[in-house]
């Protein structure tokens, strides 16, 4: 029997997946026995949500941008008559494995290890996870492997921490394993705070058991019987599905006492974050789990020695743990076959911004930025020019388009002044102002600084003030040097990763786009026509209907024109407040 599966991740839901699912449920009630209905997580094609798949044995057809009406059409034509519903097929695999659909390129270029089950299984069903080989790795690790062998396997796979820093995972585990203590902890960092990054959310929503399985295996390897998942409160669906997964795993004896009869005990608890970016830093995260203000501590002692509750702790992020079961089942060699010499395996990236296909893509390490943006991402929206990618969020930097041959791995990306980060990749086009971009990130880190270190607390504020001045057209000569000096000082004198990386967006844009800073400061001009204070406001005569709304809203009466005639803005009077843009119902006001 054919199966109809609706993508029910957060992106899908916000695009209207619930309405599609409800319509299908209604159709099924009216036509009982015609198909099976299910839900799944995120396959990564966020830009085509809501997605609906019709699966018939090995044949898969995924429809994109499905509305309840289209869903009804798919039922009539595909489910009943067995023909493809025209116009919305984004991806298909026929019985012989031939791939088709408008978005086939998006998936064809990928190698999915972490996302292996995302968008194919029902994340709320442990049976489906077991059905595709889930918890086999756990069985193997508990029954056939000694803890040292597990650590050795992870070591030789070459897996490095996917949270951003890229510390070798096996080595980290060996430290925690070597420390003797009455209690040890396994912590999963699911406090994905970088704006523009949603890899971990998607894995937790789409394949929660893979993360649990990775954590239990880690527990066995380091000799711990308890784990915490620290998940940000902004991800309610991830938390809900994790809770369902934990309950189900307990029910099947994968969590609890004497797991699979091996004598090994392990259990997991979810801790919800409360909205503090700094809690992504591991020592601040521990403080938050302990119920305190999430402020970082001095390292050493490192978590492997004294972590959560002062006990030896191993902390990895979601994506790292999700890799573990695959490595245990398929072997370290198979994993190490992907990627580059020093960065093995794959990495998930969240493509967003001015790219045509925004979504999640997993590629072997060493894939170039160009391939990610153009082959997978489909190029730049609205035919504009590719300017840069921003990687690593507020801790990272911009990589300009002429360096787009840079391979994504833990060595090449830092060489450009950016960082790998957790995988957020925001694509910028020629309308993006790099000074404004730097100001945006500084504003973020300045807000999120916990206040412990003076340089981070006050230094970021001083930098933000200088940047705001520059974007307002009040920059002074010497401002860029001031930013560079402050940036260096903050990097050197801050305790944790937040402060040590906060100046990166500024320093990296100065490095590659010094001319834009100079244009703002010396010529009081924004080359991308983006900074409101430095541009002229105009009205497009073609779009203007003469409704007079903008003129009524203008606080300084800079807009003139009769009703039903094109209006004109007098830029010598205009104070650049932007009210005309936000009040126009026809999108007729533009900056230049």
């Amino acid at each position: 029997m054919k199966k109809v599966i609706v993508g029910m991740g957060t992106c899908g839901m916000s695009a209207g997946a619930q309405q599609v699912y409800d319509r299908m449920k209604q159709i099924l009630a009216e036509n009982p026995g015609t198909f099976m209905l299910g839900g799944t997580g995120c396959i990564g094609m966020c830009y085509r949500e809501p997605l609906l798949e019709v699966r018939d044995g090995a044949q898969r057809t995924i429809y994109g941008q499905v509305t309840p009406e289209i869903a009804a059409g798919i039922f009539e034509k595909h489910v009943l008559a067995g023909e493809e519903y025209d116009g919305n097929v984004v991806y298909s695999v026929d019985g012989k494995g031939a791939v088709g659909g408008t978005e086939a390129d998006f998936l064809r270029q990928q190698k999915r290890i972490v996302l292996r089950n995302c968008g194919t299984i029902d994340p709320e069903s442990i049976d489906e996870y077991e059905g595709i080989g889930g918890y086999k790795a756990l069985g193997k690790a508990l029954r056939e492997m000694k803890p040292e062998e597990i650590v050795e396997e992870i070591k030789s796979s070459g897996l490095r921490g996917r949270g951003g820093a890229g510390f070798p995972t096996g080595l980290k585990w060996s430290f925690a394993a070597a420390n003797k203590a009455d209690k040890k902890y396994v912590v999963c960092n699911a406090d994905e705070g970088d704006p523009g990054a949603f890899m971990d959310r998607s894995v937790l929503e789409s394949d929660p058991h893979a993360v649990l399985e990775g954590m239990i295996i880690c527990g066995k390897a380091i000799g711990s019987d308890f784990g915490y998942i620290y998940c940000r409160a902004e991800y309610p669906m991830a938390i809900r599905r994790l809770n369902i997964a934990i309950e189900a795993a307990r029910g099947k004896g994968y969590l609890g006492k004497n797991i699979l009869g091996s004598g090994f005990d392990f259990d997991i608890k979810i801790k919800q974050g409360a909205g503090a970016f700094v809690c992504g830093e591991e020592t601040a995260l521990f403080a938050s789990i302990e119920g305190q203000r999430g402020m970082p501590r001095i390292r050493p002692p490192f978590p492997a020695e004294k972590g959560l509750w002062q006990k030896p702790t191993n902390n990895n992020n979601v994506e790292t743990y999700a890799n573990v079961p695959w490595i245990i089942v398929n072997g370290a060699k198979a994993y190490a076959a992907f990627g580059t010499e020093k960065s093995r395996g794959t990495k998930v990236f969240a493509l967003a911004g001015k790219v045509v296909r925004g979504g999640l893509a997993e590629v072997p390490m060493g894939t170039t930025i160009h391939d990610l943006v153009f082959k997978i991402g489909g190029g730049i929206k609205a035919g504009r020019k590719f300017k840069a990618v921003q990687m690593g969020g507020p801790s990272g930097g911009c990589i300009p388009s002429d360096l787009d041959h840079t391979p994504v791995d833990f060595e090449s990306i830092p060489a450009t002044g950016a960082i790998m980060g957790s995988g957020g990749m925001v694509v910028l086009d020629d309308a993006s102002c790099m000074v404004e971009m730097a100001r945006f990130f500084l504003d973020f880190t300045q807000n999120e600084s916990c206040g412990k270190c003076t340089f981070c607390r006050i230094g970021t504020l001083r930098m933000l003030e200088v940047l705001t001045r520059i974007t307002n057209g009040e920059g002074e000569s010497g401002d860029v040097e001031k930013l560079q000096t402050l940036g260096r000082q903050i990097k050197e004198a801050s305790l944790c990763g937040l402060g040590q990386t906060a100046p990166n967006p500024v320093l990296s844009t100065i490095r590659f786009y010094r001319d834009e800073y100079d244009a703002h400061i010396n010529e009081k001009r924004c080359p991308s026509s983006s900074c409101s204070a430095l541009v002229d406001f105009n009205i497009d005569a073609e779009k203007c209907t003469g409704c007079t709304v903008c003129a009524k809203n203008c606080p300084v009466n800079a807009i003139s024109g009769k009703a039903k005639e094109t209006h004109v803005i007098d830029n010598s009077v205009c104070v650049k407040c932007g009210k005309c843009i936000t009040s126009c119902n026809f999108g007729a006001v533009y900056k230049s």
Partner: protein
Amino acid sequence: MIDTAGREDNFSYRLWRYDGAPGELIPLLQSAQDHFGYIPRKAINYIAGVTGIPESEVYGVITFYSQFRLQPMGKHVIRACDGTACHVSGSRMIIDTIEDELGIEVGGTTEDGLFTLNTVACIGCCSLSPVIMIDDETHGQLTPASLRKLLREVRRKEKAAGQKVAAAG
């Protein structure tokens, strides 16, 4: 899709069940906020009493985390996304439009208690940017015009519901 079953685990139940286990302060504050919509003075009082943590420290934790609020919120909470992807797609303009339409600033509540406006760093719907959430519903690919329409629609529905209640009463 917010977990409603979890609500059984309410504030007074949690307080009553608190067994002195360390690290429960944040979950207690979260359930207080779930229960009252914000964290009132008396909740700080209860929590300090039960856990033995000084009120000053409880207050310190509340003000550290952006999730916690010491003031009641409006009936509808608008969370405007100002993450990187939304920012490059014009979220500033979207936030300006909301501020102008409702006559409040970020963090404020309208006089009629209908709307509270907050910003968030990222909702994770980057490919639908610019995005806002009104309560638990996400609205994407907004323009100033479509946004004003949306807000007026919510207002209109509230007004109609109010009149209905008044007529029935």
